[in-house]
């Protein structure tokens, strides 16, 4: 994908943030209320502990060191789960081992957040084995993306628990001093999100964007993973929400088919807004070249609706993949000169809960 036109900046605006919310966003879609009220886990303070576990793919103890060292430098403690360093084919341990590790962390009152070490594949093997009852009573931040979309969607639908969609341990650079600015900013945004800062993102305008302004809870994730949740109890309802999607390694025809699936499962018609992140497209096989670009595909699928749409948002399998507060209300403002996404949840207070 050609990203040369792409620029984005992360701007932490702190207390100035609510000014945007107070200016009266219009909600264009009909909001169907979530059965459960939104629950925002307590934000983290220095000294709080983050657990690291592998619900999907495997990772070595050495590979998480760049993440643990940096996170400790932020003032948080780290508790490394049993599945870090475990390997069962592509998985970070057997299904039973991965479920037990995550379950222990969900229930552990000492942990304020759970960082998934990496994605890969495997969360769907254990999701139905997990008991979220303690977690729903005493929620904590779950952090990850890609295959972890399974868990983010599941806790959104079943408990309306906010989470952090962001880079994971395997994306922390070995040498922080050599990290590209957007990579460093993306990783630092995890700290900002966990610390309760108001998040505010800007992206350059794109000629295919559809202008508008809308507010709603931010949901979504990896497109293919979301498709395979359809019909299951982890599937999300997108009505009245801002949907963000990203994917990697898929053919264009498959991306087209997945957007048709979103539409045919009723996930596009009542959106507040659509945020299209990065799509690393798998090149077509010779002779099977697909007709449409990702921009064409999306534009065609949303042409019947009026909500704002923005492209090339900095979320996805790429260096610029900023932490997004999943489930929390955001204001999406797509204008000819500027695109912004702002955390406007009134619950998102700067004072961490005790």
């Amino acid at each position: 994908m050609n990203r040369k036109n792409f620029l984005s900046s992360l701007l932490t605006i702190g207390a100035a943030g609510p000014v945007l919310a107070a200016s009266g966003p219009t909600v264009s879609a009909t909001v169907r209320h979530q059965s459960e009220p939104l629950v925002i886990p307590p934000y983290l303070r220095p000294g709080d502990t983050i657990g690291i576990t592998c619900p999907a793919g495997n990772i070595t103890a050495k590979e998480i060191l760049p993440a643990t060292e940096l996170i400790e430098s932020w003032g948080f403690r780290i508790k490394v789960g049993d599945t870090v360093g475990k390997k069962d084919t592509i998985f970070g341990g057997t299904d039973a081992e991965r479920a037990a590790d995550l379950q222990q962390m969900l229930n552990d009152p000492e942990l304020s957040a759970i960082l998934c070490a990496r994605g890969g594949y495997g969360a769907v093997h254990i999701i139905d084995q997990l008991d979220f009852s303690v977690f729903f009573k005493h929620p904590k931040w779950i952090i990850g993306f890609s295959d972890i979309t399974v868990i983010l969607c599941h806790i959104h639908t079943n408990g309306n628990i906010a989470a952090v969609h962001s880079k994971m341990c395997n994306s922390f650079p070995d040498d922080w001093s050599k990290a590209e600015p957007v990579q460093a900013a993306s990783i630092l945004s995890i700290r900002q999100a966990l610390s309760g800062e108001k998040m505010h993102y800007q992206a350059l305008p794109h000629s295919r964007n559809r202008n508008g302004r809308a507010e709603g809870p931010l949901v979504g994730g990896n497109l293919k993973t979301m498709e395979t949740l359809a019909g299951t109890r982890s599937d999300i309802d997108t009505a009245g929400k801002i949907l963000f999607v990203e994917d990697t390694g898929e053919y264009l025809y498959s991306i087209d088919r997945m957007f048709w699936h979103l539409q045919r499962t009723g996930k596009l018609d009542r959106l507040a807004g659509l945020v299209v992140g990065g799509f690393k497209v798998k090149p077509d096989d010779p002779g099977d070249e697909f007709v449409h670009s990702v921009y064409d595909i999306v534009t065609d699928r949303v042409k019947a609706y009026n909500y704002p749409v923005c492209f090339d948002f900095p979320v996805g399998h790429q260096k610029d993949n900023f932490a997004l507060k999943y489930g929390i209300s955001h204001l999406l403002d797509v204008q000819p000169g500027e695109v912004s996404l702002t955390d406007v949840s009134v619950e998102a207070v700067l004072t961490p809960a005790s």
Partner: protein
Amino acid sequence: MPILPPFLRPGDTIGIVCPAGYMPLERAQTCIDTLQAWGYRVRAGKTLGSGSENYFSGTDDQRLADLQQMLDDPGIGAILCGRGGYGLSRIIDRIDLNRFAAAPKWIIGFSDITVLHTHILTRCGIATLHAPMAGAFNDGGAAGPGVDSLRRALAGESLGYEAPAHPFNRLGSAGGRLVGGNLALLAHLVGTVSEPDTRGAILFLEDVGEYLYNIDRMLYQLRRSGKLEQLAGLLIGGFTEMKDTLRPFGATVEEIIRDVIGDAAYPVAFGFPVSHGPDNVALKIGAPYRLAVTAGEATLTES
């Protein structure tokens, strides 16, 4: 119980359309010649050997119009899809099935055509034919068992099939209507108005060119959406040209399927001749069948 369209008689006309990917006319010539040799007339739709220069056999509107015309035309006794590829999901909700439901005809195909088969069974309760398409007649395929089973199915013969014993088979026998097709497309239909109702059904699955982890993920979707719960039986066809990730998945397709179905009580047969490979027999989706899996073999017969 689903409605079986009338079987064909000599002189009936078979229409050939390409509702998904592009196919040059010459690739369908052996198929056309063979259907004529069977005693049928053939009418090529505009989407077969169309002027399209891209992936699809025509625009969505053109593919829809060609298929719609064949569905509605009382002079067409059956519709054979030239090939699959990708494209039915883009037009399925715009197909008007009213005339077709009043005067059903056999729709023939597999792979992407799974979308059409499943949609028609779910929405109209009409049986369709999961069978070889035009390309399968080439390179000697016209004389093979798959194409021959299509000939016999169209003529109204009651067909039965056998598969050799497989160590992962689950023994038993069961009756039910036949549902299934391409795994990726069945998973893709879950949550839509076209999704299959698998309760009490004999489900058959095949796929091509997918990563092993993705096969596993799609089977988990079927299981988690309840599609594997109340089956009468399960038939596993060919999973051809499977791909693996740099880190090997560590299980074969057969092992993946065995593990996903767990301790299901229904009979299961592996190695059934339905696939993107040479083994691909005609199956009447929606029709009642009986599956018997014994220590020696598995048999599927129309009941």
